[in-house]
Structures are given as structure tokens and as C-alpha cells.
């Protein structure tokens, strides 16, 4: 039976690992290589590493550092941040990334995603969807004030045949009060592609509650692993007790 994937997310600011609350208030949480080593030893199902400042600061991701992170990992790794060109994707796949996570470029230029999927294969192109709520609508989080419905964006990317959606709730980010369950029900109705939910997990029961809404995607989180005593293994034990299939 296919297992529910449990995925720690590492957010990097160009210098160290940080953890935000609602995408602000970045707090330093450690050294990416050490943290990756710990996650590998805890036998997590996948790892996501994102440089959250690369696009904003107009720089490329730090390849030598990312390579060191990947070298610690014997599970699939997704890397994101500042990806603008085929060369960027090629560089990341070349140092051993399994998937790349793209957001800004996908919003600006869907045609780029069509070509990337054709060239690299859909299995390695993941799309980051950062979601805000405004006037009871789910919108994509934008640096400018342009209004883009989440539904429109996901539908467009679905047509581009991308491999996966990593859907992050900005409102829940770092708050540790639980996932936005309605959000993932919505996303599951828009696309049949694999989904990774992230944003809000603070205790193991939050993961169980999301799966029990008939959500069948992956479960990602960050704060719970940085700021509480819970490890990915303990979360898996809780899921297992609730009869949810996990790899232990």
C-alpha cells in the first residue's frame, strides 16, 4: 500500500536556515547541512529545501551549499528558490536534486513551465503555490498587488502537466495551530496531481486531522520539527495509531 509521505521543509535565507511566521519574522534555526543530516538519520520520506530570499534578492541559489545538503540525503530531495532558467534547473538536477520547486517564474511565464516539463520530464517539476485568503477567496501570494485566484493558477499549471503542487498557507505558516483543511479540500478538487500540504502543523494530531478529511496528499512541516520535541518518527507513530499508512 502506498504510504502517506512525511516531508520536513527547510527554508534558507542565503546565510542560515530560518523559520517565518506568516512569511515574516524570520527566526534563525540553524545550519542547513547539520539539519539535513539529522533528517536523513530520522529516515524521513523526502526533504524540501527552499531559498526563500533568492528571487527577492535577484541572486542564484548557492549551489555548493545545496550540494552539501543533498549529499547528506539518501531520500528524494526537492530544491527551490530563484529558479529562472533551464540552466538553473539543469544545475540543480546535476548536483543530485530530484525535483525543483518553482513559483515566481511559473506565475510570470507559464510557457516556461510547459517547456521545462517537456525537456526535463514532469516528475521533476514541482510548483509552489503560496496561498493567502482575501474576501473569502483563495489567492496566490504575490509581491505586487496583482490578484490571481489560486484556482486559476493551479488549473493552468495542471494543464502544463507539472509533477506536483506544494501548497503553503501563508496565514497558517509558522502559527502551529493546524493545517487549513478547507484549503486542501479545495486544491484536491482542482487537480488530480500529487499535492504536498504545508503550513500550520504544531502537534502530531494536526497531521492526522488533515488526512481524516479524505486528503490523500503528502504532509509537510517545518516549525514542529524546529521548535517542539516532536520528531518525524513520533508524527509517524501517531499517524500509524490512527490507521494511516506510513513508512516506519
Amino acid at each position, binding site marked *: *500500500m*502506498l*504510504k*502517506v*509521505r512525511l516531508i520536513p521543509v527547510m527554508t534558507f535565507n542565503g546565510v542560515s536556515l530560518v523559520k517565518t511566521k506568516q512569511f515574516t519574522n524570520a527566526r534563525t534555526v540553524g545550519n542547513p547541512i547539520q539539519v539535513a543530516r539529522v533528517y*536523513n538519520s530520522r*529516515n524521513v*520520506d523526502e526533504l524540501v529545501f527552499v531559498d526563500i530570499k533568492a528571487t527577492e534578492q535577484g541572486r542564484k541559489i548557492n549551489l555548493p551549499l545545496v550540494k552539501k545538503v*543533498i*549529499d547528506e540525503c*539518501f*531520500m*528524494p530531495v526537492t530544491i527551490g528558490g530563484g529558479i529562472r532558467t533551464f540552466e538553473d534547473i539543469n544545475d540543480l*538536477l*546535476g*548536483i*543530485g*536534486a*530530484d525535483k525543483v520547486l518553482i513559483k515566481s517564474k511559473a506565475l510570470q511565464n507559464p510557457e516556461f513551465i510547459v517547456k521545462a516539463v517537456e525537456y*526535463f*520530464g514532469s*516528475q*521533476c517539476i514541482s510548483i509552489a503555490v503560496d496561498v493567502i485568503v482575501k474576501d473569502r477567496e483563495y489567492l496566490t501570494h504575490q509581491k505586487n498587488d496583482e490578484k490571481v485566484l489560486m484556482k486559476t493558477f493551479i488549473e493552468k499549471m495542471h494543464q502544463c502537466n507539472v*509533477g*506536483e503542487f506544494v501548497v503553503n498557507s501563508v496565514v497558517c505558516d509558522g502559527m502551529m495551530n493546524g493545517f487549513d483543511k478547507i484549503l486542501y479540500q479545495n486544491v484536491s478538487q482542482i487537480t*488530480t*496531481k*500529487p499535492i504536498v500540504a504545508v503550513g500550520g502543523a504544531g502537534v502530531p494530531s494536526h497531521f492526522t486531522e488533515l488526512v481524516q478529511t479524505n486528503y*490523500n496528499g*503528502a504532509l509537510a512541516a517545518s516549525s514542529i520539527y524546529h521548535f517542539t520535541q516532536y520528531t518525524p518518527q513520533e508524527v509517524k507513530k501517531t499517524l500509524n495509531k490512527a490507521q494511516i499508512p506510513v*513508512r516506519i
Partner: protein
Amino acid sequence: MIVVIDYGMGNLASVQKVIKSLKKEVKITCDKKEIQKASLIVLPGVGSFEQGMKNLNDLGLVDLLYQEVIQNKKPFLGICLGMQLIMEKGSEPNECNGLGWIKGRVVPIVNSRLPVPHLGWNNTYKHKEENQGDTLLNNFYFIHSFHVLPEEAVECTYVDYEFRMVASIEKENIFATQFHPEKSQNAGLLLLKNYIESYA
């Protein structure tokens, strides 16, 4: 020396990393002389079947691989696309011939209820004798939209995804996996360690 064949189809760095972690000498190459000298040939790969065959043809490796693996019986490990390519025929995106070392085809996963690709960790199993149930094996990491249908008697392990698919094939000196042992944490490392240490 172990040779990982570089034919422009995806993540070779991970395979190399795992072999290095086992303290074995490994080279990523498409050089014919190096492949002839190898003690074990690894064919990894992700992407489309047709493109994979085209690249092997363009590099002139199809006959060489036949000679080394089928005639000289050199140990061969295929991973993911590298497993699919050893079949007779593929269909991604168009019908085309594979290496043809094992009788059978590669067909799309058609699933009414579950998403395609089959992505994530799933446990493999072996059939015991008639009416004795299955032997459960470890969880491995899968990511694929096509699966192989062997049409000859080969030793297989299986994986369930609404229906039964082949997870690995063994025939004489050929061993091939649909899953990614190099991405499958301790279970994958152990499998590769046991396999590689018996050959290289």
C-alpha cells in the same frame, strides 16, 4: 570498477553518491572502452522511453550493451527507466523498440481511482507457493507512470497500486528495479550494498 552509464537521462549523481558511500570505485561515463572494462554496469534514468532509446542509439551503446550484458554475461543493474529499457517494446510517448533482453512490454499505468504517477513509498512483496500468501518486503521509493509486463518466466517482486505491478526483475546476470533504491534510505542502501558486494 562500476560504470554508471551517462546517456542524458536524469539523476546520475544520486546513484554515484550511494556507490561511493559503499567505498566502491565508480565512474559515470558513456565511453565504450570504460564500459567494456567495467565489472558491473548500472543503467539508471528518468524520462521517456523513446528518448532513452534514442540517446542510447545516438551514443552507439545498444550493440555494445548487448555484447557485454547478454553475450559476456556481465552483471547489470537497471533502475527505473533503466529497467523499462531492457524490455522489448515501450510506448512512451510513441511505440518503439527497447533493448529487448526480456520478453514483454512497457505500458501506461491505467488507474481509475488513484493518481498517476505512482509516487511515494510502497512496500514490495514476493509470491510464495500457491495459496501461501505473499512475503512482504521493504518500502521503496517509486515514481513512474509506466510499468513493465514481462512475457517470460523471470523472478519478480511486485507492488500493489490498485492492481499488481512488477517492482523488480531478476534474470541470470540482470537485476532491475522500478523503484529507486538509491533514494530509498536504509532499505535501498542495504539492497544495493548486498547486490554490489556480490559482484564488484
